[in-house]
């Protein structure tokens, strides 16, 4: 199996966000000059009420959303300034898992997993499905890991939600990413499947030694799986620390009110 490429200095931070600002409408910031450093290991969960910019933060990191101002240093390289090929080359090093899986419905499971290699395979070869044998072997191995090897030739729209998210994870890991982003990966899933998906993601990330940044609505799930929690409210960070330090008092501060706490 292909292992994730590790940067020269494992102690250096994987990602440094500096004064990141995003305004969809001029003068109405969704992210208010965030500065966060992410280590090269560990699971970071971003929690906070809806509309507080969690998704925008995740999407700014791989530039699916254009930041208004600030720096996003990924292993020292400022992603916010990249364009064209350089941006695509940075994107291939960052895997992403989506809330609604975002699989290409009409393609097979195998094609979806291999699409994680589309940053490397030229168009004609991709169109003719002429992937390097190493990629195909890696894809089968990953499908085995996520427990879907017998579904390889099924179309993605034939799968259940949990199965689709497994394919989504396999696609992201297929990139051999140095960072895994997950935008509400369990919000469309039932509680049991949510736990299974989190377990899968965490175990793959640990085995491949890649850091994970995910935003998540489910606080118990965040507590159970994350090593670090970032609490956001109104586009700013109101808590940043180890999971153990997240008290009810802090949660009240993040979400406001206390009736929902039991």
């Amino acid at each position, binding site marked *: 199996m292909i292992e994730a490429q590790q940067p020269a200095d494992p102690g250096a931070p994987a990602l440094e966000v500096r004064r990141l600002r995003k305004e969809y409408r001029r003068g109405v910031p969704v992210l208010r000059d965030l500065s966060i450093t992410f280590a090269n290991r560990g699971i970071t969960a971003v929690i906070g009420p809806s509309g507080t910019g969690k998704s925008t933060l995740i999407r700014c990191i*791989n530039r*699916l959303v254009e930041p208004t101002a600030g720096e996003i240093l990924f292993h020292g390289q400022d992603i916010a300034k990249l364009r064209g*090929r350089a941006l*695509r*080359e*940075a*994107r*291939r*090093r*960052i895997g*992403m898992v*989506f809330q*609604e899986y*975002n*699989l*290409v*419905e*009409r*393609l097979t499971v195998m*094609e979806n997993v291999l*699409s*994680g*290699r*589309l*940053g490397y*395979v030229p*168009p004609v070869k*991709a*169109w003719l499905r002429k992937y390097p044998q190493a990629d195909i072997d890696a894809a089968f191995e990953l499908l085995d890991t996520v427990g879907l090897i017998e579904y390889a030739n099924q179309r993605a729209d034939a799968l259940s939600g949990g199965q689709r998210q497994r394919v*989504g994870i396999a*696609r992201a890991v297929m*990139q051999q990413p140095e960072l895994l982003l997950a935008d509400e990966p369990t919000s469309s899933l039932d509680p049991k499947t949510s736990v299974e998906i989190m377990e899968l993601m965490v175990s793959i990330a640990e085995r491949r030694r890649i850091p994970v940044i995910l935003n998540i609505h489910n606080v118990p799930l965040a507590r159970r799986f994350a090593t670090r929690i970032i609490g956001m409210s109104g586009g700013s960070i109101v808590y940043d620390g180890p999971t153990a330090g997240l008290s009810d008092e802090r949660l009240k501060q993040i979400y406001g009110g206390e009736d929902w706490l039991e």
Partner: protein
Amino acid sequence: MTAATPARQPAFLPNWPARLAWLALAAYALYAASLLDVTWERFVLGIENAIKFIGRMVPPETDASKMQLMMRGLYETIEIAVISSALGILLSLPIGLLASRNLMPTWITWPMRLFIALCRSFHQVIVAIIFVKAVGFGALAGILALIVASIGFIAKLLAEAIEEISLKQVEAIRATGAPFMNVIIYGVMPQVLTRFVGFATYQFDSNLRNSTMVGIVGAGGIGGTMFAAFQKFDYDFLLTILLAIIALIMVSEALQNQIKRLYQ
């Protein structure tokens, strides 16, 4: 019942503008019909003429030299339909893609949409007349005319289909760092492929029918033979040709169903 029923709005509001529009349409249709001078006498005379005409058509011509003439026309018709469909489909792919407003900037979609609109502006026969003037009599003029028609239809519908795709799937492919062409091949085309095949087979059917017609203006195919038979009052040969065209369309229909089944 409660004592004080609250003042209610009507459950269904009448749509007066639409009612007036329907009324106006009906009135105009009646007025236009009165202008056409359709009378019972004309109708009866018409039926008599039709019976005479059909009587002269049967039995259909089966003379070997005539059959040979017809087959030559039919082959040319099929040739026109296949070549114009193949090239039309191939050209429609990039044009439709460039015309889709959710993937392309305005300065590309605008001229592309204008071009598509131009292709759709005139009936195939009119386009065929222009090409007959440009490249001379024969199948080439018919092929060019039907390529224009194919682009007008397929590229327009393809652009519309692309504008309706799920951008989430496209976003996921972009997030892998895929270059633009890979995003198109994996994120866009799978989402529109079945519909594209539907448009393409429909246009092939349409081209086949239209390629029997462009011959009337000298752009090749069975149409020329058919028109000549008409003018020479060779009505039994005309019936043979009509039956052959019907058979051709039915074969094409069966073929289309097979193709669509391949791409579900």
